[in-house]
């Protein structure tokens, strides 16, 4: 599968990344080569093979719902790039009217 500049634009938007034109061309070329390589897997018939998402068969790991201390808000906010009171402050999210 050849990855085009349009593919790079679309995937970059999904991944919240931005590239200049040179980088896009390089990314399209490198991703095409990697994808071409991984398409080697199509040689294998995996019709009746079940997928393995994890190396250990653990299911629904639950713990008792006990009340206990969690991270102190001041500690949680210590690394914040910007804050207001007990909140993380970010640039505007909604379009203004």
């Amino acid at each position, binding site marked *: 599968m050849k990855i085009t500049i349009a593919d790079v634009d679309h*995937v970059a938007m999904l991944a919240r990344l931005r590239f200049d034109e040179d980088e896009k061309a390089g990314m399209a070329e490198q991703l095409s080569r990697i994808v071409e390589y991984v398409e080697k897997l199509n040689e294998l018939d995996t019709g009746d093979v079940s997928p393995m998402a*994890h190396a250990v068969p*653990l299911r629904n790991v639950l713990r008792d719902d006990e009340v206990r201390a969690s991270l102190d808000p001041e500690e949680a906010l210590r690394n914040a790039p910007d804050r207001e009171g007990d909140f993380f402050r970010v640039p505007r999210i909604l379009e203004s009217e």
Partner: protein
Amino acid sequence: MRLYELTAHELKEKIERREVRVEEAVRALLDRIAEVDEAVRAYVTLAREQALAKARAADERLARGEPARPLEGVPVAIKDNMCTRGIETTCSSKILKGFVPPYDATVVELLERAGAIIIGKTNMDEFAMGSSTENSGFFPTRNPWDLERVPGGSSGGSAAAVAADEAVAALGSDTGGSVRQPAALCGVVGLKPTYGLVSRYGLIAFASSLDQIGPITKDVRDCALVLGVIAGHDPRDSTSVPRKRCDYLKGLVPDVRGMRIGVPKEYFGEGMAPGVRAAVGAALKTLQDMGAILADVSLPHSEYALATYYIVAPAEASSNLARYDGVRYGHRAPGCPDSVTMMTQTRSEGFGAEVKRRIMLGTYTLSAGYYEAYYLKALKVRTLITRDFDRALEKCDCLVSPTSPTVAFRFGEKMNDPLAMYLSDIYTVTANLAGIPAVSIPCGFGEDRMPVGLQILGRHYDEATVLRVAYAFEQATDFHKAKPVLGGAGADGAVVGVAPACGAAATGDGSGEAGGGPTRKPAGGEADA
């Protein structure tokens, strides 16, 4: 023997017998770092004051007559993707520069509870993506055996620190070989435990179904010692497996007589450097001479492992790295008019080229229309690869292979060709896909007298067998005692064992053949560790 040259078990004994104070040991390591780290550049952050304070507290404990703990006073280094409360943790990424975690990773807690002293955080490929530590967002680490070469990666800082005696032991993380490959390239011991044996809580996630923390040490006994401290169930990691604790030190018996060791033919094919082939071949002969039974086995889906890995790992990474959005911690691009622009700008400035490449690859293979063709397909092949191992390990106690197809390569050699770099992981990614334990131990010298690693792979949770074979091999050879020449190479040049710079003399047999014949102890030679 200088203090900084001791193994963890040797140093702990001296501390226990009160021959050495913990503060002395920590100062010896800090002095060693001051002496050689300008050349090696293994550390991104030093925790000098914290380490000295903890050392004094440990000395007071011992003075009060409290018993020495398993790693009492042992200075250790931690890869910079494990959270250390109060010590900057960056994953060697600009996007996390300045991040000071409010909590400790479970492994850090366990090490400190066992008496270890954390002296610093080691350099790595950014977010553990790479095989050379050249992808660090800050600077490359150099191989202590040849400063013109890479230490391997992604735990290159941890492996180089141990090889250069800048840490007595270290932790790395291994997603596709990131503990074992740098350990091999730096001539030290590195173990990737069974998936689920060591808690990932506080390990900054790369590919959650593959990531596992493991020790990087000077010998196999230290590996078993550190593993015993960090292994165990942790309710804070839902993939941590509840199991009975195991005394890995007890299993270290220097005897492999009658053990069946599988040699997978797919791991000895094309693409291996002649020097690596010779060293690993000699190692197999050594094991056979020691009474092990070598058996030819086949892992037929091996040729699909790298492709499978390079779908699964970037897919998981693209999801895990979505959290770096400039909102709660780390870098935030200034002056952006809205949040989406801020996130896009932050990520574009903060991530390096390889991380972006993998996020793009993972996002692509998970995106609508491609999920089944790539990701789901890869998960099915992962099943086939795991079945190969299950079958081979039914008939064998463990398997052996080279750790890496080549010795350490030169800077820049593979930086412009991602696929060539990915091939460094060809023998290591399978253990992560299957979740099995695998260790790399020094087994000789290859091209340009650079270290070669032997990989030993075992059954799920059977670290004991893997370590036993590693220990037996180590007891029969001297490779783990070889040290690189570094620092003040003056009259008191602190070199023990053999030095690669001495050419043929390095193997002690004077033959100087390519690949280096193994240094074998005389028959009946007593183990001295």
